[in-house]
């Protein structure tokens, strides 16, 4: 028996969770001697009050869409991919190699290949933990955590050796001009709409396409059906002739590939060279985004924009007050805590409330469920 009506499950519970997270965040702001409402006003204004704000908000959101979708796809297969960070780092390596390998004449040629490179490298980094989970039963949460650290060590090494540009900084040379992605400023400028100079670039479109693609994948394809079935019950999947190995591998490859795509936005679209800290925690933000978005692409998109706004608003907050931008990390933590780990705190009282509104107990056969 479904204990909650669908609308409560999809909208009410996440809303209460989010509200709780924001209320506690407000208390934190108050505790460090700031006015939470003022802080909120600064953040909202900074994030969506101008084309500058929107540009940054959506730029961050693009990153979070990719990493959020990555976590969401794995969630559907009941796999907790905590390795988005490392997969995105490897994706950055893939994108950088593509951009540096060829003197690209035009971005329209470079973009598809970079997408391929980022996705392939990200997927490859997810493949090993996936294989170990599917064949050797190694817990994927732990292995992906370990792979995050290994990825960052690998990048550190490459950037002081093979890939290092002349000079002091551990980074590659700048990508060729032909691999530069058009920014929102240029795109909107071409059609006569003024827009501020921000890192927002055409990757945002790629992110939207990725959302649509994941939706089709999960709810319309046979693979998606099999991923969802496997995620709910592995014995049932085996019973239905769905290979657990194949689904674990495919789900994680897709997940890692999506995380790797983040580099198209961050590395190719913004940094335009490979540096050590190219992910900046976006891989972890993906966890919060997927949890809040209930692993649905539309939810992920909305949550990603919210987190993009938080990041941009947080930067403004730091600029205008003495609240450091780590405030955003706190909010992010609270969102993960309330929507992910403390979900039951909201859900069970709500279930009780809805139960009392239903009809009175009657004798009869219980729907057969396991506790």
């Amino acid at each position, binding site marked *: 028996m479904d204990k909650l009506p669908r609308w409560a499950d999809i909208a009410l519970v996440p809303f209460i969770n989010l509200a709780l997270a924001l209320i506690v965040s407000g208390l*934190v702001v108050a505790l*460090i001697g700031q006015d939470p409402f003022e802080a909120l006003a600064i953040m909202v204004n900074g994030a969506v009050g101008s084309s500058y704000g929107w540009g940054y908000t959506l730029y961050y959101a693009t990153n979070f869409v990719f990493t959020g979708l990555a976590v969401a796809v794995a969630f559907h297969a009941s796999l*907790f991919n*905590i390795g988005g960070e490392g997969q995105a780092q490897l994706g950055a390596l893939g994108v950088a190699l593509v951009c540096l390998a060829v003197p690209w004449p035009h971005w329209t040629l470079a973009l598809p290949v970079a997408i391929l490179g980022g996705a392939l490298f990200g997927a490859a980094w997810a493949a*090993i933990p996936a294989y170990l989970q599917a064949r050797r039963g190694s817990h994927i949460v732990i292995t992906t955590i370990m792979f995050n650290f290994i990825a960052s060590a690998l990048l550190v090494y490459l950037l002081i050796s093979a890939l290092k540009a002349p000079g002091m900084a551990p980074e590659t040379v700048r990508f060729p001009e032909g691999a530069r992605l058009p920014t929102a400023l240029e795109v909107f400028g071409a059609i006569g709409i003024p827009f501020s100079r921000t890192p927002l670039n055409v990757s945002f479109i790629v992110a939207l396409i990725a959302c649509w693609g994941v939706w089709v994948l999960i709810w319309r394809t046979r693979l998606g059906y099999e991923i969802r079935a496997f995620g709910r019950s592995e014995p049932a999947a085996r019973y239905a002739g769905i290979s657990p190995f194949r689904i674990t591998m495919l789900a994680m490859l897709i997940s890692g590939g999506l995380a790797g795509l983040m580099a198209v936005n961050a590395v190719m679209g913004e940094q335009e060279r490979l540096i050590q800290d190219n992910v900046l925690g976006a891989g972890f933000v993906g966890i919060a985004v997927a949890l809040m978005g209930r692993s649905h692409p539309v939810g992920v998109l909305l949550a990603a924009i919210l987190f993009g706004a938080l990041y941009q608003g947080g930067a403004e907050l730091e600029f205008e007050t003495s609240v450091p931008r780590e405030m955003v990390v706190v*909010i992010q933590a609270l969102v993960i*805590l309330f929507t*992910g*780990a403390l979900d*039951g705190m909201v859900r069970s009282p709500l279930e009780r409330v809805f139960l009392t509104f239903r009809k009175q107990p009657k004798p009869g056969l219980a729907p057969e469920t396991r506790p």
Partner: protein
Amino acid sequence: MSFVDIVQILDSTIRLATPLLLACLAGLFSERAGVFDIGLEGKMLVAAFFSAAVAAVTGQVWVGLLAGVGAAMVFALIHGLASITFRGDQLISGVAINFLAAGMTVLIAQDWFAQGSRTPALSGDARFSSIDLPFAEALSGVPYLGPIYAEALSGHTILVYIALLAVPATWYILFRTRFGLRLRAVGENPGAVDTAGVSVTRLRYAAVMICGLLTGLAGAYLATGLAAGFTKDMTAGRGFIALAALIFAKWRPWHALGACLLFGFLQAVSNRYSTLDFGIVQIPNAFVLALPYILTVVILAGFVGKAIPPRAGGQPYVKER
């Protein structure tokens, strides 16, 4: 590499292994009771901050230690609430705790000290001073063993010795006491504990709070023993290395000591040498640093003995008929 180098590396191995060991034993208590904890990192971090901050303000390291441990236990309580009382996902709760610590420490550091997310440098009574073991001076003349005893083993802060003593203590508690029996049982089959008339909830909370206590000591050692103050993200992944050590040790106390010494040794070596030159092969520093993680993956893959976690680990306990 001279003998003096070896002694120095051993000395810093012990130094660097200490926070790992405390955090590893912390994880051991929690996970043996069936509560997975990937939030060791966050608890260490918050303890590091509060111990340094309070030590800086009061000038008393012991007060700082108390504050650090208290903060870590508050975070442990949050993890307990989420994973025991509200039956949430233990892994997700751990992730949240790591972020909460990373954000809160910087936020409060900035608010209290306004020194760019760090505490003032600690000195004097605000830090743990080193203790000389008995006869360290006298025995230092003995060839080989003397210097190892006097230089590497002796001269650490009290928390190092507490960490080392925590190993036999953990073993004793786990395998020789009623509490240990129940703790191990609740990680394997909470139903058995519940039907035997013992509260699963209380046992798991106890384990989680011990975990908070030990991560508190680990964090305090980082900020007031190993370093002289708190800096942003100063745990630098140690919580995860401790987790790796726990798996490497297959959730056993003495093996945890071995694993933490090994991982501490790797850190010590990579701190000292930028590359390891063995003549034919040169091993880059980055590889040495990544080695604990690589070794853990190898262990998890079951190529060198299989690591099987406590059976009921990760699952909230729900009574069933």
